Structure formats: structure tokens, C-alpha cells
């Protein structure tokens, strides 16, 4: 049995806004191939204000698909179309106090139905922009298409790299066999052979040696300064803060954060907080921060966890 929240059960047993809305002027029909679920969302929109006056759903699907549909209709009523479009699938899942990772696609389906219905109202063609595959990593709900695309786009060649780029495999690690199989196939397609990592301590050493550019954190970076040597300490710290600030959205997306503790010459002491603290990928994250700082400051910078700072 799935571990459904009380909110999911409530919306499944007593769904709100079931059935099609009379005189709907926006209709979205979408389905999720991985689960076989499908949803029709009907909206009644006020043409003057673009406010959603009424919303109804018809769903062919499992408990969480029905609950997600019900939640979606409750969330969009009274909103303008533009406001409604800001609802993410995570918002739908949060509204339901969470969904099991295998069921997150039900919330994705809800969001897509909304986009499709709005497009229909506005007389636009809606086309789905993401593909969904079989779930590979259950800890972080990463599917096969995502893993394959990332391996292809970045020429990845190890499980560690896949974990750094997608998070897949970063939790319980039981999907590593599946990731190795995907790597074997994708690498064969580009004419390479997959070589598994060594076990035990040897493996740990190998990872350490890897350069920290593995971490892909999308963040605008200040133009590399010619050299920051001429800056005062306060200017340097401000600049470091700017870099950290630019990286924060990516870290916060994973419920983590970073705080600057001290700067001692070329050594920068930081604290990883929130989900980042204690995360097994903390070393990689620090490596990513270091890389960005080196680029921005135009000099070599060493990023060290504040816990390793020598006592004053």
C-alpha cells in the first residue's frame, strides 16, 4: 500500500469539483504514459478579468491522480490565468502534504492539464515539453529519460557524475546497477566503454582526486576579475558574498543553503546549512562553490568547511 497523506486520502475519498464544468471555455486533456492515468480539466474563465470562475475535473486514474486533480481545481479557482500558471507540480504535491516519489508524476499531470486548458482558452496549441520514463532513483524521483539525457548532454561516464548532475543514486544507492546499465548503453552509443569505479577506499580516493567542476550549479557568475589582488578585504568579502548569493537559488532548490564564516587570505570558510549539511554530496557542493569563486576572483581560492577552521 502506498504511503498516502491524510490530505491525499481526503481528496480521493471526497473529491472536490468532480465532473465537467457547464459552459467551460478552456479544456485540457493530458495523460501520463508511465502510469496510464489521464485527466480532463475544464475551466470557466471570465473573459473580462481572466479569472477562473469554476473548474472541474474528470480523471481516469489511481488514488493520487484523483486527489491531485481535486487539489488542482481547488487551487486554481478564483485565480487569474496568469496566477494559476505559476502553480508548479510541487505546489500541488505540497497542497496534498506530499506524494510518494513514484506518484509525483500525478502532480506533473495536473500542472500540464492546467497549461493545456489555458492554452485551449487562449486559442493556442499546447505541446508537452518533457518526456517521462520509468523511475530509476526512488529517493529523488529521477526517471530514465532524465538520466539518459543528462549522460548524453554532459558526456558523463561514472555513477558519481550521474549523481552529481541529477541527484539520481545519491540516496540509498540501490539504483546504482540500473545507472551503470544506462551508462553502459549511452557510452557504447558514443563509442566508449563503461568502466565501473573501484570499490572501497580506492574508490573514495579516486573521487577525491576528481576536480570539483563536476558540480553543475547554474548561477550567473560575476565577470572574472583580472585579479582581485588589489581589493581590500571588505571588497573581497563583498565579492565572495555576491558569488555565494548567486548560487543560493540552486542550493535552496534542494532545501539547503550556505553561509560565509571567515576569509583568511586565499582560504574561505563556509557552513553548509539546511539539507546541504550532512548531505553525502557536501564535498561536491563545496567543490562547486570553490570553482565559482576561482572564476569570479580570478585567483586560486580554497573553500573549507568552517568546522575545519583552526581555533583562533
Amino acid at each position, binding site marked *: 500500500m502506498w504511503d498516502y497523506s491524510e490530505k491525499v486520502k481526503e481528496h480521493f475519498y471526497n473529491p472536490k469539483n468532480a465532473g465537467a464544468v457547464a459552459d467551460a471555455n478552456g479544456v485540457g*486533456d493530458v*495523460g501520463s504514459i508511465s502510469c496510464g492515468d489521464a485527466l480532463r480539466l475544464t475551466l470557466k474563465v471570465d473573459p473580462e478579468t481572466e479569472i477562473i470562475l469554476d473548474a472541474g475535473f474528470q480523471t481516469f486514474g*489511481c488514488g493520487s491522480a484523483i486527489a491531485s486533480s481535486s487539489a488542482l481545481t481547488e487551487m486554481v479557482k478564483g485565480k487569474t490565468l496568469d496566477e494559476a500558471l505559476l502553480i508548479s507540480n510541487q505546489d500541488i504535491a505540497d497542497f496534498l502534504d506530499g506524494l510518494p516519489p513514484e506518484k509525483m508524476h500525478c502532480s*506533473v499531470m495536473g500542472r500540464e492539464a492546467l497549461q493545456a486548458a489555458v492554452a485551449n482558452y487562449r486559442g493556442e496549441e499546447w505541446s508537452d515539453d518533457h518526456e517521462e520514463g520509468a523511475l530509476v532513483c526512488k529517493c529523488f524521483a529521477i526517471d530514465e529519460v532524465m538520466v539518459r539525457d543528462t549522460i548524453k548532454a554532459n558526456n558523463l561516464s561514472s555513477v558519481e557524475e550521474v549523481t552529481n548532475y541529477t541527484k539520481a543514486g545519491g540516496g540509498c544507492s540501490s539504483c546504482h546497477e540500473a545507472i551503470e546499465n544506462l551508462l553502459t548503453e549511452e557510452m557504447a552509443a558514443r563509442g566508449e566503454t563503461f568502466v565501473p569505479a573501484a570499490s572501497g577506499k580506492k574508490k573514495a580516493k579516486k573521487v577525491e582526486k576528481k576536480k570539483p567542476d563536476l558540480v553543475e550549479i547554474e548561477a550567473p557568475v560575476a565577470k572574472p576579475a583580472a585579479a582581485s589582488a588589489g581589493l581590500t578585504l571588505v571588497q573581497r568579502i563583498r565579492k565572495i558574498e555576491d558569488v555565494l548569493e548567486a548560487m543560493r537559488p540552486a542550493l535552496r532548490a534542494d532545501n539547503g543553503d550556505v553561509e560565509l564564516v571567515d576569509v583568511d587570505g586565499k582560504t574561505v570558510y563556509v557552513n553548509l546549512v539546511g539539507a546541504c549539511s550532512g548531505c553525502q554530496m557536501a564535498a561536491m557542493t563545496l567543490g562547486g562553490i570553490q570553482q565559482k569563486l576561482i572564476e569570479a576572483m580570478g585567483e586560486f581560492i580554497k573553500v573549507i568547511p568552517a568546522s575545519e577552521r583552526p581555533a583562533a
Partner: protein
Amino acid sequence: MSDIYLDNNATTKVDPAIVEAMLPFFTEQFGNPSSLHSFGNKVGMALKKARGQVQKILGAEHDSEIIFTSCGSESDSTAILSALKANPERKEIITTVVEHPAVLNLCEYLETEGYTVHKLKVDSKGRLDLDEYAKLLSDDVAVVSVMWANNETGTIFPVEKMAEMADEAGVLFHTDAVQAVGKIPMNLQDTAIHMLSLSGHKLHAPKGVGVLYLKRGTRFRPLLRGGHQERGRRAGTENSASIIGLGLACEQAMEHMEFENVQVKAMRDRLQEGILAAVPNAFPTGDVDNRLPNTLNIAFEYIEGEAILLLMNKMGIAASSGSACTSGSLEPSHVMKAMGIPYTAAHGTVRFSLSRYNTMEEIERVIEAVPPIVAKLRKLSPYWGENGPVENPEQAFAPVYA
């Protein structure tokens, strides 16, 4: 009102008499059956009795043909991998598209190791084509593995005939009989079946015990090597209490074989008739004239199985579904797909599997409960109109799939 359990193909209740028979083997008779002293010796004698009880239900010629394992899956893996090890020059396996994952996933893995796996197809009623099978038998085939009865539909395969054909072609034959043992009388000594898997918890013994039947003279390579237990064919200290429970469960199943095939079957038939009379757009799947007496699989069109199960569960009725959403993997049932059941029906299949502990009164309650549940969900379905499916359901609702 107590809850109604109709999911006996998933697992069964351990009979109280079996629990009682097992209990002394946790405390008083805890010895290792391999030990010389009396603590161990008594357990050894009890295991011998259990082995005889299993031998009897299978109709095996010798009690040494019974190898105790930890579960049906271990028996399946042991049988198939043994056949491959013993015949290294043979690189082909024959099985069916509707096998349990215990066999199917192993075969898929073996494909990546260079083996060729032939999966026999089934028709719309889940039946095999024996001509297709005959053509595949050759000196390149190491083993045939075909289930005796299907876990989802209860459809029975002609394994005795297929074993005969394999034997004539000089090919080893294994059958996964975890659903069949205890429901279908069998006498393995009169068959050409070389290996058979049995699972304790499907016939009111506890979980964690299984059997591999290995016909005397069949070439064998153990999966677990180590101690001399099970005559060196399955190392590891015996799960004595569970084995003793399984022995008694086999004896009880023999005693209830007729009850299973008369009374349980009558309840199953009443359930089918009662639901189909009250629910439109529903049909039984599989080979209804040739299936296990306890199994009923109904496809409810235009709704989804998990939703049905959740609402049934709320009313205290336990069953299972072939829908994608009820399995952890999110894969829709390969059995329904193989039979070509249309998409809008395959997702709404519900399996009711009965046991001798069910009563006709329970069956009547289920017949009452199911139709309103189906109606409630159809009201939510985009394929369903006021009083029936919308016209041209597949066209009226054709979502964009992601």
C-alpha cells in the same frame, strides 16, 4: 463486521494449528538438526516427517527429491541457473510472456549475459500455442520454465504435456507451481517434470520457506554452496520451524483438496456471476474454463484498479489489481498486456483470490459492495457519460500523453 480477505494468491493466513505445531521449534526444540545430540536429533526427525508430507502432496517418488529453500523465487532461480550451469554449451531458454517476475526478470538479466530467451506468446484468453513451443525445442535449449498456473488470472498451462515434449527433445523442464500446489492434485512421479517450485506462504504455511522439487537423476548445480544441508544441494541451516509448518500445511491442503475444488470454486463462481450481473462493461479475463478454482480476475472498463482497491479497502475488502499504479514499479500488468486486453480495461483489472477460510456470506457482501464503487469511479471518468461509456470513448477523450 470483520474484514474480508480475497487476496490469497498474494499470500495466505497461517492456519492456527500450523502455528501451534511450529511453536515448540523456537523454544524447546531449538537444536541444529545437523547436531548429534538429542536437541538436534529430534528436530532432524521432525524435518524428515515434513519432507514426507511435501513428498506426498507433490506425488514425488522419493523424499530426497524435496529440497527446502527460503521461498519460491529462490527455487526458481536455483532451478534455472542450475540448468544453465549443468549445460554450459546450451545458450537458450524457453519461457512464457506471462511468467511471474521471479522467472521473467531473471531471464531478462540472463539475456544481458548472452543467453537467448524465447518467450511463448499467449492468446486473448491467456493460452499457449504448443506448435510454437514444439518448434523452439532443440539441442540449444538448456531449460524450459513454464508456470503451472498464472497468478493473475488463474489460467492453467498444460505443463505435464509440455514436460513430456521437452523430455523427448532432451531438454530440462522446470515449472513454477507456487499457485497450483494445494489447488490442483499432482503426481509428479508420473510426469516428466524435472524441477518444480513451491512456496509455503501460498498454502497457509508461513512466509520464508519454499521447496525445489528435483527429480532423481536430474543434473544439478547448487546455487548456495557451503554446508551439507539438503544433501549438499542447498547450504544453510534449515529454517526448521517453518519447514515443519509447511509439512503440516501440505497435509491440510491434501485434506481440503476437494473442498477447494467444490466449495471454494462455487464461491468464486457466485462472485463472478453476482458482480457481472450488477456491473455493466466488465468481463472476466483469462481462460475461464480452465483456471484455478479460487481465482477470479475481472476487468472493469474505463476506471483504474488502484482507485477501486482503495475504495474496497475502505469497506474492509482486500483484493489486488493488475493496474500500473498498484505495483511499485508502475508497470502495467504484463499479463493483461500479453493477452491484448484493451488499455482502458487492463488498468481496471481486479483479482479476487479466495481460500477455504472465506464464506458465502462474505462473497454476498462483496457482491453488494463492488457495484457502487465502480459507479462512483466511473462518474469521475472522462470515458464515462451519464449512463454508460461515452460514444467512441477512445476518440471522445484522447489526451496528450507525456
